[in-house]
C-alpha cells in the first residue's frame, strides 16, 4: 500500500503513546527525559506530515518543527543540569527521592 498521511499519523501516534508509556512506568529522571524526547519527536513528525500532504505550498509546519527542536534542545540542557545537581545533593536521580524539591 502506498504510504500516505495516515501512515505517518499512525507512526507518530504510536511513538507518542510509547513515550507516554515510558513516562508512566519509568522512575528514573533521565529515562523520563528520554520519553519526553520521544513525545516531542512524534509531534514534530505530525507537523511535517501535515505540511507535506495538506499544505505543500506553505512552510509553517516546517518552522514549527524547527522552533520545537530548538526549544527541546534548551529544555534538555536545563533538565540535565538540574538532574546532575540533584544527583550531587541526593546521590540518586529517582523521582521518589526527589520529592523534597518542593519544599
Amino acid at each position, binding site marked *: 500500500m502506498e504510504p500516505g498521511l495516515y501512515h505517518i499519523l499512525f507512526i507518530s501516534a504510536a511513538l507518542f503513546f510509547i*513515550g507516554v508509556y515510558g513516562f508512566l*512506568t519509568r522512575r528514573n529522571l533521565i529515562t523520563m527525559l*528520554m520519553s519526553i*524526547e520521544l513525545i516531542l*519527536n512524534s509531534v514534530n513528525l505530525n507537523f511535517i506530515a501535515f505540511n507535506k500532504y495538506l*499544505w505543500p505550498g506553505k512552510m509553517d509546519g516546517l518552522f514549527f518543527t524547527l522552533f520545537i527542536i530548538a526549544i527541546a534542545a534548551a529544555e534538555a540542557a536545563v533538565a540535565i543540569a538540574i538532574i546532575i545537581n540533584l*544527583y550531587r545533593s541526593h546521590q540518586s536521580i529517582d523521582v521518589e527521592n526527589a520529592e523534597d524539591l518542593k519544599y
Partner: protein
Amino acid sequence: MTGSIIIFYLLAALTLGCGILAVSTRQIFRAAIYLLFALIGIAGLYFWLEYEFIAAVQIVVYVGGIVVLIIFSIFLTHQAGEKLPRQRLDRKIFAALAVFCGFALTMLQVYQHEFYGSEDTGEAPTVANIGRRMLKVDDGGYALPFEVISILLLAALIGCIVIALREKKEIKELPQRPEDKKP
C-alpha cells in the same frame, strides 16, 4: 512494492521498534542507544518525506547534541552495568492499558476524519526559501520567533551555568564526602 515503499516500512519499523525498546529495557545505557536509533529513524522519515533541511537539523541537534548530553549525564550518575530496579507489575499493566486505550481512541478518530488539503505548490522547502522566510519581517515572516528563540537559548545557557555553579563553601567540603573516604 517499489523501493520507496520498502524503505518507508523499514524506517517505520526501525523507529517504532527502537522506541519500544528504549522505554522498556532495564539497562539505562542501552535505552540511550535505542533512543539514538529511534531518532535516526525519524530523521530517515524526514528524508523520505523530502524535507532534507529538517532531517539534517534533526541529526545535528538530536542525535549529535541531546543524545550525547544524555549519555554524558548517564556516565556521571550511574555505575557501569548497573540495572534499573524492576517496576511494579500493576503499574506496568495499568500504564499499558491506558496507553493502548488512548492509542486506539486516537487512531479511531484519525481514520474517521477526512483530511482536505490544498493543491498549490507555492514555496518548496528548500534551504534558500527557508532562510528567506525565517528572516522576513513583514507578513508571514518568522523574524520575531527567531529572535525570541535566540533569547530563550541565551536564557537556557545562563540558567545552566547558574544551576551548575557551586557555592565556595561546598568546594571546601568536597573531600569529606562519604564515598570519597571509602577506599
